[in-house]
């Protein structure tokens, strides 16, 4: 941040309104400066987390201090998606200040940081840019206006004469820092209706500017949760039941106690924790614990490779065959349409459980003292984390402080707060400040997994070969019952006895699942294409393995199912895959457009190298529209993905470089899932344990990727997730083109 003060121009300043000043002083605003928040929010007198000592104020996302530091408290979690840069760019644009000069601070917990769509402080749903685009522009534009107003009044000039340029007030060729006027600006009423810039005036939005967290992340100085350290901090490791949901029946810690560095061994709600001087010592002592478990009944019976009708895939198939389905969407009269159909095509698809496998294993630091709990954690939902920690540490929620860090990957995993609950429970039981760290094995075997899913499509065509009815039924677990189970402990009023809360927590799953369908269960299965008759059903098939949001949520499997089905229909009709899709996208012009753009960029089925084949898939999710064309070859039953062309319409691209990087990220993540990703269970025990048996795509397997971003003046939409859903189908469809084999199960296995 530039802090040079320009004082070579004689300023005749008007005095600062003392009444207003005293008021501010009484509110503990000592250092002066302009502190503003979104005008729409409430105004609890709560100190800002991470605020500078001398500038504290409620409702604040943005601070301009009198010594000319511009602080932006980042309300969303940076987990790679680029929000640290994106949101700051939006602020800088309307503030007329180079985003590189804004001091970005990972915000703690505060009402003002709530996600306006979720009404909770949560980062997810690819909605950060979309929901903050206008509010942050208004905030910054109003802040710039009040600085100009202050300058005009202090310098006795007309407002129209006060222009700005990159954080400076420009007067008669002289440049004065915004900070010079921050104190006075604080005495003025904060404007509410400063005009916003037109697109053609943008200096930073739409430009390929460098990421603002790039230097910290290239030098190892970016702080992740796992890097938090302070004098006296102990390391903690937790041994959990090999089958998720099990609890400790009894344990013997006599062998573990004597291990080097061990300070405390405590039982908590889901296991036995070792606390030691260092994490590696705690981890080394874990195998010495002897624990008897109460095993969860349902999950213990499930084995992925079972061929029984009520186990393995049979459980899902039986559910599909049952009459228990709940209708989620209905348009027209599909049943009648089927009776009159010229052609009926039916197919079933499968997608397995998946783990998130973020690079940074789950971790949380907890320090409990004087009925006050401090947490250091990189997470997607600090508000839920706070409430759960309150329950497990037996501390009032208002006595919890959260220090936010960068997240070493999220992908939805860090929207869960199970690891925060564990850290809080261990801190309470051991009475020591601890950093709980998970091993990779803990991570892969105690996830909130992407739900395994099976879907059956029945599609009828009319005489002209166009889709007349589109019917799809999906069987699998639902997210919401687990989400409810996971948060009930944290949202019930503290006046309720814990036993009652525990009961409600267990009842949450049953209550929800018997009454409602979570829309994420079926999202993406039926929306994109034109058909006079549509129907979508859900039926719960749930072995009892906890599930949660995994990058793109329901779209992560529905993209594969729907786009494989569409390809099957086109192939059976001897229609070109691109043309056939376009015929059914008359009511979805943006999806049609990205498909045309991708087909042109990829030179669809024109002049491919010998032995190379293409497959296409399109999918709309998180308000964005994506088409992908994969180019593959199959040699000796081995698949090579050479190139992927991707076109995205995400409205206005705030930072095209980050949009491109998120498409590459979604494609590569999606390829890991498409080619390798599979969590399997044996008698309820997750079989995978580390990157050798749960591989992630490596650099030599990563295809060449070409991204085209549609030029758009419309408001920005999501990019963190929409790049993932089409890729598995694009590759599977290319494999069909290459081999004539239709792969209907993920991961894609050529020999099977």
């Amino acid at each position: 941040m530039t802090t040079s003060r320009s004082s070579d121009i004689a300023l005749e300043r008007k005095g600062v309104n003392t009444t207003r000043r005293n008021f501010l002083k009484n509110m503990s605003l000592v250092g002066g400066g302009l502190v503003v928040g979104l005008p729409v929010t409430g105004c609890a007198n709560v100190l800002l987390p991470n605020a500078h000592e001398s500038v504290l104020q409620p409702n604040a996302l943005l601070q301009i201090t009198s010594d000319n530091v511009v602080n932006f408290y980042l309300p969303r979690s940076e987990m790679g998606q680029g929000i640290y840069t994106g949101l700051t760019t939006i602020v800088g644009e309307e503030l007329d200040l180079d985003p590189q000069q804004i001091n970005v601070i990972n915000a703690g917990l505060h009402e003002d940081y709530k996600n306006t769509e979720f009404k909770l402080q949560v980062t997810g749903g690819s909605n950060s840019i979309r929901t903050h685009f206008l509010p942050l522009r208004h905030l910054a534009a109003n802040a710039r206006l009040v600085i100009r107003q202050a300058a005009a009044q202090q310098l006795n000039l007309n407002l129209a004469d006060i222009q700005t340029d990159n954080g400076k007030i420009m007067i008669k060729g002289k440049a004065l820092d915004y900070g010079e006027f921050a104190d006075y600006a604080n005495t003025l009423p904060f404007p509410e209706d400063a005009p916003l810039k037109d697109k053609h005036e943008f200096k930073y939005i739409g430009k390929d500017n460098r990421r603002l967290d790039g230097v910290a992340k290239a030098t190892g100085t970016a702080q992740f949760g796992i890097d938090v350290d302070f004098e006296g901090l102990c390391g903690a490791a937790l041994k959990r039941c090999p089958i998720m949901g099990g609890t400790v029946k009894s344990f013997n810690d006599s062998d573990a106690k004597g291990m080097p560095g061990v300070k405390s061994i405590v039982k908590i709600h889901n296991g036995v924790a070792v606390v030691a001087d260092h994490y590696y010592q705690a981890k080394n002592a874990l195998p010495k614990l002897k624990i008897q478990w109460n095993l969860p009944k349902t999950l213990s019976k499930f084995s992925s490779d079972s061929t029984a009708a009520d186990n393995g895939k049979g459980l899902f198939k039986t559910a599909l065959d049952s009459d228990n389905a709940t209708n989620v969407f209905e348009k027209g009269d599909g049943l009648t349409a089927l009776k009159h159909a010229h052609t009926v095509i039916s197919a079933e698809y499968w997608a397995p459980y998946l783990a998130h496998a973020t690079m940074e294993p789950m971790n949380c630091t907890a320090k409990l003292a004087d009925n006050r709990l401090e947490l250091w954690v990189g997470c997607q939902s600090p508000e839920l984390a706070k409430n759960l920690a309150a329950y497990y540490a037996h501390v009032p929620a208002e006595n919890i402080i959260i220090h936010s860090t960068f997240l070493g990957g999220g992908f939805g995993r860090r929207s869960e707060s199970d690891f925060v609950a564990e850290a809080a429970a261990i801190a309470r039981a051991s009475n020591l400040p601890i950093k709980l760290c998970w091993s990779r094995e803990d991570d892969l075997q105690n996830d909130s997994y992407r739900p395994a899913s099976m879907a059956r499509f029945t599609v009828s065509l009319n005489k002209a070969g166009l889709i007349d009815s589109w019917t799809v039924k999906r069987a699998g677990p639902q997210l919401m019952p687990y989400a409810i189970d996971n948060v009930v402990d944290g949202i019930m009023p503290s006046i309720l006895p814990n036993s009652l809360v525990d009961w409600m927590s267990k009842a949450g799953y049953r209550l929800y699942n018997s009454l409602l369908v979570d829309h994420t269960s079926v999202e993406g299965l039926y929306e994109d294409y034109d058909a006079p008759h549509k129907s979508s059903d859900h039926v719960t098939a749930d072995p009892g393995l906890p599930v949660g949001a995994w990058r793109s949520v329901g779209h992560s499997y529905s993209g594969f199912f729907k786009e494989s089905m569409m390809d099957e229909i086109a192939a059976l009709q001897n229609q070109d895959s691109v043309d056939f899709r376009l015929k059914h996208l008359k009511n979805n012009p943006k999806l049609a457009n990205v498909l045309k753009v991708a087909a042109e960029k990829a030179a669809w089925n024109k002049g491919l190298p010998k032995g190379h084949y293409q497959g296409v898939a399109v999918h709309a999710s998180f308000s964005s529209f994506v088409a992908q064309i994969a180019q593959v070859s199959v040699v000796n039953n081995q698949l090579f993905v050479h190139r992927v062309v991707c076109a995205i319409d995400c409205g206005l691209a705030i930072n095209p470089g980050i949009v491109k990087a998120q498409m590459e990220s979604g494609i590569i993540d999606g390829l890991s899932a498409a080619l390798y990703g599979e969590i399997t269970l044996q008698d309820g025990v997750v079989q995978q344990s580390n990157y050798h048996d749960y591989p992630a795509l490596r650099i030599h397997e990563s295809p060449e990727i070409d991204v085209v971003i549609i030029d758009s003046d419309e408001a920005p939409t999501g990019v963190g997730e929409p790049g993932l859903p089409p890729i598995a189908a694009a590759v599977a469809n290319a494999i069909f083109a290459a081999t004539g084999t239709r792969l209907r199960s993920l991961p894609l296995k050529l020999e099977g």
Partner: protein
Amino acid sequence: MISFELNGKTTEVTVAPDTALLWVVRDHLKLKGSKFGCGMGLCGACSMLIDGESTRTCVLPMAAIQGRKVTTIEGIGTPDMLSTLQSAWVEASVAQCGYCQSGQLVSATALLRKNSNPSDNEIDEAMSGNICRCGTYPNIKKAIKQAAKDLGEDSGQLQMVAYFDPNSIQQEA
């Protein structure tokens, strides 16, 4: 007591000889740039240069470090003094979540030390031990090629830090 050179400075530690180098560097010597990812030498997040070779340190016992030269990300460059590769990395906005990036930079530094103009295949080979779950691979390739070009034009350095003072470290939260 085990003695080795860490980022240009002779360092002595008293730990069990089977303690992994990663934990000694992170927990005892408080350099947090090298990361724990898998504990099995599979992901590369813990990579450090050992006598110039990119090495997985989460499975490397201290007993094997006696007398050797260890360079961590902190010993390659700092925010105020980026190596040529780090500059290229920042320019290409390689990092996404950033967690694997120290390891990636260590492996890329080792590559460029041996090969001033690596081909795509040579980059693949040298970097395949480092997983990035965010999929920054296309930009990693771009940054390595740019750095090779800059170094070839004699306008940079692969390592900016001859001696690293641990007290100089400041984390950005």
